[in-house]
């Protein structure tokens, strides 16, 4: 009879035999993106496919900067993603806290309305949102237009509501009896305990903002307020597509997210599995 550890070994071998090639298939386009970002424009479509990086990255970056003012658009993207993530985490955690902590008339209706918005496709919302912000409020090409409308995120409210509702109610009762103010209970007891969820939510919101294309495309067409993904989009012209520049920009856009994910993935996994089991 084979021992338990030997069976475990062969099971691991089988899993790796399947998952390894799958991971390579998934990583291949990303690798090629990185390779193309280091190749001259004409080299990308050469019949001999190069699988290893070349030395043209800096030249490609200079071309990208010249064509789009990429550093400025990167700055806009960073600012929009950072500010909207911080504000959105604050707003959604406060909303989640209110839904868990307080009893008020119409709470079920408010909750249903918030979560009901999750069922609306973004494309249904984006046109009236554009009309309101651009035409009625006249706020095109402003930080406000880029940051504020996407702030109200029902997924974030759901996340935080779930995190707070799983905390023992006695913790808050104990603090209340001790005379701790409601705001202090929220900031000193509830939020520190929700750190993994907050981190996961922050990553999700940052990613969503960083990758957002449609709304910034509609609301910020001036070069000074353009975000990086939109700037890359402008490189796809009717007659000419600057693939080397696009790939260089794509690498620069992907890199921060990979780094953030590597450092925060333990929070991310803890956050998305929150509530899965008792």
């Amino acid at each position, binding site marked *: 009879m084979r021992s338990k550890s030997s069976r475990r070994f062969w099971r691991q071998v089988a899993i790796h035999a399947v998952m390894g090639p799958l991971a390579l298939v998934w990583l291949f386009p990303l690798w090629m993106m990185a390779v193309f970002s280091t190749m001259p424009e004409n080299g990308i479509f050469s019949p001999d496919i190069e699988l290893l990086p070349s030395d043209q990255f800096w030249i490609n970056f200079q071309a990208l900067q010249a064509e789009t003012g990429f550093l400025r658009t990167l700055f806009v993207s960073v600012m929009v993603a950072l500010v909207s993530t911080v504000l959105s985490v604050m707003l959604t955690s406060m909303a989640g806290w209110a839904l868990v902590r307080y009893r008020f008339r119409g709470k079920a209706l408010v909750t249903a309305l918030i979560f009901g918005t999750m069922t609306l496709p973004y494309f249904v919302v984006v046109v009236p949102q554009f009309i309101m912000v651009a035409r009625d409020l006249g706020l095109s090409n402003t930080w406000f237009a880029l940051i504020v409308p996407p702030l109200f995120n029902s997924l974030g409210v759901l996340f935080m509501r779930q995190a707070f509702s799983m905390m023992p109610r*006695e*913790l808050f*009762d104990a603090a209340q*009896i*001790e*005379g701790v*103010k409601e705001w202090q209970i929220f900031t000193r*007891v509830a939020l520190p305990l929700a750190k993994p969820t907050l981190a996961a939510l922050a990553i999700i919101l940052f990613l969503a903002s960083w990758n957002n294309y449609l709304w910034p495309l509609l609301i910020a067409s001036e070069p000074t307020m353009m975000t990086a993904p939109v700037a890359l989009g402008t490189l796809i012209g009717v007659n000419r597509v600057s693939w080397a520049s696009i790939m260089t920009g794509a690498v620069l856009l992907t890199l921060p997210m990979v780094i953030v994910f590597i450092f925060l993935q333990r929070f991310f996994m803890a956050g998305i599995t929150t509530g899965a089991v008792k």
Partner: protein
Amino acid sequence: MAGVTVSAVRKRYGSVETIHGVDFSIADGEFVVFVGPSGCGKSTLLRMIAGLEDISGGEISIGSRVVNDVDPSDRGTAMVFQSYALYPHMTVAQNLSFGLRMNGNPAADTERRVAEAARILRIEPLLDRRPKALSGGQRQRVAIGRAIVRKPEVFLFDEPLSNLDAELRVQMRIEIARLHSELGTTMIYVTHDQTEAMTMADRIVVLRAGRVEQIGAPLDLYDNPVNQFVAGFIGSPRMNFLAAESLGGGRLKLPNQGGAEIGLAAAQGLAAGQKAVLGIRPEHFAAAGQGNCDLHLAIDVAEHLGATSYLYANTKVGEPVVVQAAAVRSAHAGDRVAVSIPAARAYLFDPNGARRA
């Protein structure tokens, strides 16, 4: 320090009333235990005194002050929870001082109070640890310490020992009793464990389905229960209840126990044929022939604990009888034994549960 008065207090959740007009007074410095089965409203009552639940009717006073609309933090109470409710991200010292710090208490005084509480509860070496690095008993000590630093007028304990193992429970029971005698503060303690109630309380409030069944000193409740519920709830193992039928003239027949007969003064007023329930505690059976009514028992299970033995018998006749007998160490499952009910030790209840004196 302060006493607590609860007058006609009610609690409704929508159309459902869970506390039905409860009245009692607790004297300054008294240790009172709320006891009752799960769902009887004892924790709700405690939370209403703490101010964590609104009351739907009636009045709660702490000291001379009506506190119906007073914020929980201003009632002069401190509460210890079953789950300890320690803040997991803070050290023991931070847990103890959290409330004081948040209320702007001077740092020197906070430090002094924390040190004093730690000394009383002997948790000084634990002050820098986080709750996850503590055992259940240590966590409960910290939870009690958090209550002590507030210097409350009334301590509220909500089943504080339920999560501890049997040995620690006994240890903590003694600790809490010691704390009460040391601090002399009014304490209200909720439990479903009648042993805790009997050993710790100056007085016990027995609750059932949102109503007070009886209030009294532990031995008063044990000796003179007002009804079948209290008689069954106080005492472990619980009192035996045997179906009885009056034969007239104060005599009763026990139809499920082979038709045994017994004469009881409490049965004098019963007409022949009237039904009743006879109660006898497991520890009050006498040896066969030495009481007033012999029962012949078929033992189903025998538990020998050393100092005493419990015999569980007559399950098959549908009316089990438990006998506590220090002298029956040789009895085993399957044996037959005879015991006797001394009339002076028997209780009689109407079929609706009221005691017949």
